[in-house]
């Protein structure tokens, strides 16, 4: 269980095995949330569809691109770490975090404008689920930013031990999960009619 480094010619999964206990568990739960949402939606399709059309789809699209770009930056970070290009790794990690912060800022703007338009979480079931699901995702974004700040500190180290490399990979995988979940959420909340 404790050995992390594997010979290069063998297939290996990124991060520690345990990371995936957490990641798959998290995915499973979001899956349960999505199913709950679809069940509630099937009970009042008209209400849900009318409410869906009041969302800011432009911000949704931009946020999707923001997170995808952020994921790309983390891929660059990891490649740079492996190639021992520390300054590039640091810059790419900082860029990934900046995009993460931009996502939060846009999300908060969206919440405020929805609230101001009378579409708060109490308005109807769609908005309740919208705020809970995106709020839970936003919480994950915040956790992810914590993980990325760890990655940022590691890019400044001259040498990474196997355990540290695995932790950096695990943090990157978590950030990809946050991205993946958002793509599902975006499709489910903004697009499916």
């Amino acid at each position, binding site marked *: *269980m404790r050995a992390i480094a594997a010979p290069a010619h063998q297939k290996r999964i990124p991060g520690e095995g*345990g990371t995936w*206990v957490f990641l798959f568990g*998290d995915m499973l*739960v979001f899956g*349960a949330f999505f199913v*709950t949402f679809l069940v509630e939606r099937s009970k009042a399709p008209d209400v849900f569809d009318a409410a869906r059309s009041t969302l800011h789809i432009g911000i949704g699209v931009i946020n999707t691109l923001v997170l995808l770009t952020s994921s790309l930056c983390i891929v660059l970070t990891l490649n740079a770490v492996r190639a021992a290009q520390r300054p590039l790794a640091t810059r790419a990690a900082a860029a990934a975090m900046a995009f993460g912060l931009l996502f939060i800022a846009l999300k908060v703007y969206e919440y405020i404008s929805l609230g101001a338009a009378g579409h708060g979480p109490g308005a109807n079931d769609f908005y*309740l*689920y919208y705020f809970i699901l995106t709020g839970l995702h936003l919480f994950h974004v915040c*956790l992810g930013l914590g993980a990325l700040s760890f990655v940022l500190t590691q890019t400044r180290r001259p040498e990474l031990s196997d355990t540290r490399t695995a932790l950096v990979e695990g943090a990157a995988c978590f950030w990809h999960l946050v991205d993946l979940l958002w793509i599902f959420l975006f499709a489910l909340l903004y697009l499916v009619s």
Partner: protein
Amino acid sequence: MAKVSKQHCARGNVRLVELTLQRIGAWCGTVMILLYGASFSGIAQLFPPLSPASSPDEIAAFFVEHKLWIRFGVSGALLSAVLALPFLAALILRIRRVEGRWGMLSMTQLMAATVFVPALLFPQFFLGVAAYRPEERSAELTQALNDVFWLWFIGIVGTIIIQNLTLAVAAFVDQTDPPTFPRWYGYLNLWVATLSLPGCVVVVFNDGPLAWDGIFAFYIPGLVLVVWLFSTTAVMLKSIKAEQRALQPA
């Protein structure tokens, strides 16, 4: 010379007995949740939970109709909840083994674990009071007692999250041989902590998925608590057995 080795042998035996007691403690967690769940869900029939959106009359009618079963269920839950005490003691001692002394992790775990048993015990008394003479008082009073039970029962989840986080840190810094916690158990604890979190806002919602009968506040935190207890028992048993094997003369 012979005297010294006899003392040494006696100390070894004491250590082995202690580890056997820890194994019993590890089992207690799993046994506790099975008995507690059976009392609460089976005997008292509080599964699925009563809806927070029900009218006072509906709540009172449930208590009048089921009052004897609820009292039996509460008694069973009160008795089985205390089985968590040896379980938590074993858990704290395992964390202490990681630290090698009483440090931040074992002490934080101790403080959080102190609340674990009261969190299971004390709300049951409100349920007991609600079922004690439900036909002799106004329905709103029974509803209020029922509210206190559920909000307390679900909303106190924060101390379990602290337990999870200390365990996660303990699993990540563990250097003991044989190992006390596998690293995947650390990640499992992070997962349980994340999923238990929605329970904290249970007082905010009167209905919906975050209310006390909702999927995010009741079913998922409840499920991960059971998963956590089962896997904690398994993880502790494995490491205690390995420690016992290492102690026994070849």
